[in-house]
């Protein structure tokens, strides 16, 4: 190739790369949450539900489940997340029944069924809590990669724990993980996408 033609080819390639950097990469609707691909089946569990019955995930097939982990004595992350989820459920309007929030405790010592029921009712009476033995709950956390560690605070203790929530679709697949700090609008956005499938 003559030198002049080579220079022109190089120039054309440079221009093509620059133009390519500005082209839209597709307009598919994407989740605000971090999405897993391929999604795996959400690990199921059997815990004591705050509604008095056995709490399993398969019981909510057909609905989108937001699975959260926390403890009722939490003073910042959990109240914020549950408040956001309650707001999101209201914003869903007619679709609110298609969203189920499940909140599994990381503090079985203090969070019994009655305490969880009272705590969750303050946000939304449809929210269901799950508790069990320390071993049962540790097994659930391991399946989801949830970290929880107990720290002494004054004469009591607190539990540092993973703050993200999981989005489980109507077929029971673990689709996404919503990091802490997202808004009710973001949850509504993602839940509507999952409901459309």
């Amino acid at each position, binding site marked *: 190739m003559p030198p*002049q033609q080579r*220079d022109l080819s190089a*120039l054309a390639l*440079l*221009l093509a*790369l*620059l133009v*390519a*950097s*500005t*082209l*839209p*990469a*597709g*307009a*598919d609707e*994407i*989740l*605000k949450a*971090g*999405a*897993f*691909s*391929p999604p*795996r089946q959400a690990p199921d569990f059997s815990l004591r539900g705050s509604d008095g019955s056995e709490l399993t995930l398969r019981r909510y097939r057909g609905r989108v489940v937001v699975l959260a982990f926390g403890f009722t004595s939490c003073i910042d992350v959990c109240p914020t997340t549950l408040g956001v989820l309650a707001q999101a459920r209201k914003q869903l309007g007619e679709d609110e029944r298609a969203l189920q929030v499940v909140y599994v405790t990381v503090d079985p010592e203090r969070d019994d069924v009655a305490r969880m029921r009272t705590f969750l009712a303050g946000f939304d009476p449809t929210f269901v809590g799950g508790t069990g033995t320390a071993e049962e709950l540790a097994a659930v956390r391991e399946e*989801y*990669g949830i970290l929880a560690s107990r720290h002494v605070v004054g004469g009591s203790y607190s539990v540092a724990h*993973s*703050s*993200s929530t999981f989005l489980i679709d109507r077929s029971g697949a673990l689709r996404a*993980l919503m*990091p802490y700090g997202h808004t009710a609008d973001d949850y509504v956005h993602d839940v509507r996408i999952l409901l459309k499938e």
Partner: protein
Amino acid sequence: MACLIAGSAFCAATWAAWSPIRSATRDAVFEIPKGTWARRMAGDAFEILPSEIRLTLGVQDILQLRNLDDVPQVFGPALLMPGQSFRLPFEVASRYQFACTAHASGQMTVIVEPMPASAWARLRWRVGALWKPERWR
């Protein structure tokens, strides 16, 4: 010929500086290779991912992690099964610290920068993109 090249380069630079950067979505893809866990267990503290990843809002703001290893790996809050990927979009410019078992240090940082707003910033971003292959995926 020299004039033609200089003129074209000037036009390209002008366009790169003034044309807005548009993108519906851009993924920065990183892979945890097969055998990572086994090598770590054997005492090899090698790095397979950069300890710091830079993203740009509205341009390249989705981090995609692929676990090609034989064992589950934790990236930030996510537990990734073998063969699974995790695609995390960012909407707020900030510095994010994550736990990551794929790093020897156990930590990684994601710095999300705002969309280049000025002509100079756009030009710099586009020139920088030419040397960052992941920006073209």
